[in-house]
């Protein structure tokens, strides 16, 4: 037996949000690994399958509705239905929830019909064609209605369907209210007819006098603002091109902005005879002026224990040097150094370019090294682990 009424309302928003979240789970996978991404992916997939559409069907004496491919369904015998009316009130969200006086089943939009059972219980079913669903439920529930009532219901439903189609062409924000007004006006015209006037011809006359359905769409005009209008293929292509250009620019801009550090290792060595030799670390200070020979301020171990500066611009560590600068090609940093004579000894103040300086922008501190030998080839390098 064919269904008396069957309509599926797509949950476009659920589909879009689920797809965005599924795409985002890919992002989570990149950052947090598979274990973090899989639960999110599965939840989103379930939401997508569950809520991509809501189907309502009237068939063989039952009103039945279900989500998605039929993961959740509910069946109401038509004989239990007292009447059906538009949902009055405001609700928000989608899914299955209790609102005001009954359960709401909805996947999209904020239109619904209220099915009132003879027991007084109410069930709210979301739909994008409330007028047609109300007509169908009421007609099916009151199967004993007179032939005239059925005929009128058929004519009215047909007219309302055509009005709805005309309005949906420009998606007027108040199309639901306009349809309700037209329905109410049709009912009042029907009520004006005397019983002997309730004929097919007069019903057709009423719809003719109500005017062509397309006129309602013309009357309300295109009330949408530009951003509500449909998204054309040209707009989408232009948007993708612009966003791709922005993303590419953002990826390549740092490469242009960063100074070419390869020159650091290629620059000409300017000799500084005072620097060449073996230096032993004696302190680590905030400022050069804070160091006093013989007074060690740093209480912990030194990361850098000693350093040898060779004549060819090389050092015993990962650094290179030229006059006034000590360069770390790996970290791409160039630190200043200062040599001071104090109490008959020579001290080197070496700016320490740690993460506090290079990342957090803090003022550099100084390693203080004392010159222990002018020679560069005596003794062993005590540093086991230089920063690479």
């Amino acid at each position, binding site marked *: 037996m064919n269904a008396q009424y069957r309509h599926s309302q797509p949950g476009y928003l659920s589909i879009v949000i689920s797809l965005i979240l599924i795409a985002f789970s890919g992002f989570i996978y990149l950052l947090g690994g598979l274990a973090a991404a899989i639960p999110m992916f599965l939840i989103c997939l379930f939401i997508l399958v569950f809520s991509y559409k809501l189907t309502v069907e009237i068939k063989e004496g039952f009103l039945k509705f279900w989500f998605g491919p039929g993961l959740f369904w509910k069946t109401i015998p038509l004989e239990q239905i007292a009447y059906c009316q538009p949902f009055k009130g405001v609700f928000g969200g989608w899914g299955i929830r209790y609102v005001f006086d009954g359960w709401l089943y909805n996947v999209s939009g904020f239109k619904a019909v209220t099915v009132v059972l003879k027991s007084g219980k109410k069930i709210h079913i979301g739909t994008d064609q409330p007028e047609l669903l109300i007509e169908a439920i009421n007609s099916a529930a009151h199967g004993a209605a007179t032939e005239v009532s059925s005929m009128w219901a058929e004519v009215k439903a047909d007219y309302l369907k055509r009005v709805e189609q005309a309005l949906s062409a420009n998606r007027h924000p108040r199309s639901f209210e306009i349809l309700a007004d037209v329905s109410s006006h049709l009912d009042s015209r029907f009520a004006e007819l005397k019983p002997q006037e309730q004929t097919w011809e007069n019903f057709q006359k009423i719809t003719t006098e109500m005017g062509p359905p397309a006129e309602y769409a013309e009357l309300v005009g295109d009330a949408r603002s530009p951003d509500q209008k449909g998204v054309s293929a040209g707009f*989408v292509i232009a948007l993708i091109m612009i966003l791709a250009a922005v993303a590419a620019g953002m990826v390549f801009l740092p490469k242009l902005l960063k100074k070419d550090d390869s020159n650091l290792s290629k620059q000409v060595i300017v000799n500084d005879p005072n620097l060449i030799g073996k230096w032993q670390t004696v302190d680590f200070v905030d400022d050069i002026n804070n160091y006093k020979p013989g007074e060690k301020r740093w209480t912990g171990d030194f990361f850098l224990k000693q350093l040898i500066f060779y004549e060819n611009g090389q050092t015993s560590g990962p650094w290179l040097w030229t006059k006034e600068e000590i360069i770390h090609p790996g970290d791409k940093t160039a630190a200043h150094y200062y040599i001071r004579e104090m109490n008959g000894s020579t001290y080197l103040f070496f700016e320490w370019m740690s993460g506090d300086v290079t990342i957090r922008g803090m003022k550099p501190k100084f390693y203080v090294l004392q010159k222990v030998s002018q020679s560069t080839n005596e003794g062993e390098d005590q540093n086991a682990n230089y920063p690479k």
Partner: protein
Amino acid sequence: MRITRNELVCIGILIVISIISAYFYPQMPQRMATHWDFWGNPNGYMQRLGAIILMPLILLAFNIAAIVVPRVASVWANIEALRKFFSGLNIILSVLLLMVQYHIILWNIGIKINPGFIAMPMIVVLLSWIIYFFYKANRKANSL
């Protein structure tokens, strides 16, 4: 229900911010500077994963709210001015968050740009737009 142009732009910005965050993630230090004082000195830090994912998550929440709220709150949806307000607000906030995220990335790979240069123009645009919107709404209300 259809996705509008403004919503599509915001979703596009969300995709861009996600792509650049994923691209630069391996280059980020373990502890990232994420907040700066008035003079542009960093004074707030976060772990790498949290810092890189924060802005995309905020933008995702904004996008969901901006798409859902006008469709759920039927009272608001029927007030065209409010719908336009939130639509425009979401685009400006999306661009602002994209710029903030990019600034965080640049700083942490060693390109130190004063955050004021990035954030201030966008904040000026945001405030100007809000003031203009309410000025227009007030004129309409007075003319009624």
